[in-house]
């Protein structure tokens, strides 16, 4: 009875902390400007199924893709086992599904064990890839300190959880044997499940008494479920949030051709007025057209989708590894752009939580991202193509360039002359517009 109450307490605390954090994240994301992504549901659903659930873009890089698939499948399917653990914990039962599922239960437990091994092996390889092998994208400047620890904490936790699950089964199997042999302390360990993997862990626990086995089995059970609840809360503060947000991020992703950069409607109305000889330049602005900032200086100038992207990014760095600017030693890293966006959004959110009315004097552009990074982008879309969940760091870069130009008139000198040339002679170079057809004369010369 006490253990049931304790369990419910642990479970409820985990859910409460996670729900509170989820609410904060939702509020932060909704600080972004509105953008309509309610169109074209069938194509969005297709992306959700293929790209998010089906991991179609992950396997483009087969090694990390297939390993990730193992962890992903393991994570999703082993959750059925967690359901049983939770119900056992609340009801005070042991292996609740064993009696109802019969032979199927053996198959399920056996499958979970195989998947647990897969997850374990994959996480060990991931740790080696991150910490031993010299893979460039895991050694960038933005991946030191916390982001590096974050990744390692996640991998170690997953390894420990899988080890606890398998140890629990190994001791359970031993207790089932003890029960069959008539040991009274093992009375409720009825024969259930098949243990294709954990049987190899049996030698670790073989010498223990029945009481010792029960302690280990219970210990692992509690470690597993407390670990899962703690992990749930941890994930919500970590880059690992992608295990949830990858799905909405993919569903609401950009469906236009990658080359399309949205036209700003606020600019369209102004340009129309400038080009219209009938327009009254002194006319009052139409109602509802309050002056707004062009482009993005801070996170609240971005759209909710861009903010969702920042929380969904798991810092894999595939974007940065294909970025032409980054590969040639420039400061720009598309991964860092999204990480900075998320970090700044967290900071803005904390200010709101603390009731800070005044601005903190910081902004995404300036305090986190420099102009040099923005001006290194070639808009080639390699980053958006490489992202396994269709995130769009390029759009964030472009919004900040818009702010630099349209609000602060800050651009490299040669870019300013390019603008002047287009304005004056309709070409980015200083050639007279009248010479545009000169090549025609040369053709027959």
């Amino acid at each position, binding site marked *: 009875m006490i253990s049931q109450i304790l369990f419910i307490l642990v479970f409820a605390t985990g859910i409460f902390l996670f729900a509170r954090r989820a609410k904060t994240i939702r509020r932060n994301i909704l600080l972004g400007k509105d953008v309509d992504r309610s169109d074209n549901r069938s194509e969005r659903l297709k992306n959700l199924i293929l790209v998010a659930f089906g991991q179609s873009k992950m396997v483009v890089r087969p090694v990390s893709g297939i390993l990730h698939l193992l962890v992903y499948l393991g994570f999703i399917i082993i959750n059925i086992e967690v359901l049983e653990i939770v119900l056992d914990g609340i009801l005070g039962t042991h292996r609740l599904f064993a009696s109802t599922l019969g032979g199927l239960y053996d198959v399920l437990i056996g499958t979970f064990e195989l998947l647990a091994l897969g997850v374990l092996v994959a996480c060990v390889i991931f740790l080696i890839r991150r910490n031993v092998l010299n893979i460039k994208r895991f050694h960038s400047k933005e991946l030191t300190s916390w982001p590096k620890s974050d990744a390692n904490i996640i991998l170690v936790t997953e390894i420990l959880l899988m080890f606890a699950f398998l140890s629990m089964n190994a001791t359970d199997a031993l207790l089932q044997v003890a029960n069959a042999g008539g040991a009274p302390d093992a009375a409720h360990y009825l024969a259930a499940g098949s243990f294709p993997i954990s049987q190899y862990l049996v030698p670790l626990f073989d010498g223990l008494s029945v009481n010792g086995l029960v302690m280990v089995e219970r210990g692992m059970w509690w470690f597993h479920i407390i670990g899962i609840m703690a992990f749930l809360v941890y994930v919500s503060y970590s880059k690992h949030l992608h295990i949830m947000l990858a799905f909405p991020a993919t569903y609401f992703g950009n469906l*236009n*051709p*990658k*080359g*399309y*950069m949205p*036209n*700003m409607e606020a*600019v*369209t109305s102004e*340009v129309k007025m*400038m*080009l219209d000889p009938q327009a009254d330049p002194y006319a009052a602005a139409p109602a509802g057209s309050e002056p707004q900032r*062009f*482009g993005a200086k801070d996170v609240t100038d971005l759209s909710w989708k861009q903010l969702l992207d920042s929380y969904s990014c798991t810092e894999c760095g595939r974007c940065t590894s294909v970025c*032409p*600017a980054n*590969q*040639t*030693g*420039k*400061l720009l890293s598309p991964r860092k752009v999204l990480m900075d966006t998320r970090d700044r959004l967290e900071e803005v959110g904390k200010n709101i939580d603390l009731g800070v009315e005044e601005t903190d004097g910081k902004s995404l552009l300036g305090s986190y991202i420099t102009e*040099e990074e923005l*001006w*290194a*982008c*070639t*808009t*080639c*879309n*390699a980053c958006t*193509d490489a992202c396994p969940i269709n995130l769009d760091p390029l759009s964030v870069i*472009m919004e900040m*360039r*818009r*702010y*630099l*130009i*349209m609000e602060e008139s800050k*651009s490299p000198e*040669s*870019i300013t002359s*390019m*603008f002047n040339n*287009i304005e004056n002679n*309709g070409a*980015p*170079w200083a*050639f007279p*517009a*009248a*010479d*545009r*057809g*000169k*090549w*025609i004369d*040369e*053709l*027959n010369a």
Partner: protein
Amino acid sequence: MSQSIHVPTMAEMAASGEVPEILFWVGCSGSFDDRAKRITKAIVRILNHCNVKFAVLGAEESCSGDPAKRAGNEFLFQMQAMQNIAVLNGYGIKKVVTGCPHCFNTLKNEYPQLGGEYEVIHHTQLVNELLADGRMTVSGGGDFKGKRITFHDPCYLGRANDVFEAPRAVLEKLDAELVEMKRCKTKGLCCGAGGAQMFKEAEPGNKEVNVERTEDALEVKPNIIATGCPFCNTMMTDGVKNFNKEEEIQVKDIAELIAEAADLL
């Protein structure tokens, strides 16, 4: 063989009450840059050879606005776009072929919302159509026999608009060996000129992007690097020069290669 070619402007055509099959949007590079003008002339020779009824805007054409937009100047972009749209709509243009993937992308994707709805194709797509329809043939591609050609995907044609096959289909018509760089199609590496980089110095780094890309090309030991974009052409030409390989490796637009193979130059 060169022959005298008449390139009608839209103004002329409209004056005589004629309507072209297609408008050739030349672009700023194609109009002013000496190297890119050779590409423009090759496209015109192909159009003329195939008896495509085309016209150009001549002095009425103006920058599409792409470099302004990508540099963050949405005002200037939309000013350009709306003025161009007024001209194009004024002539009732329905179909446009561009000599530049940046113009192609902008006209195709960004003009419609501003009132400019046209069927827009890139010149490699048009050449592919002309070859497929038998409106022109390349005579065995004489000079290309045994040559290795690698195609550098322009970002704004490939990744941005998923046009990967048309330029390759055209190159396959030449009697040459088409070799792919390790980074090609959706994984193609930028030449370094997009996003208004063409008009500024590169930010500090340890290498130029075009040098990195030229290394990709050198790996497959080509005789010719084929391009479909005047900016890429400049960047790759400079990259090849950087390695002192300009004697061995030519950088040419697909239109130039086809015009050469069909003996139009």
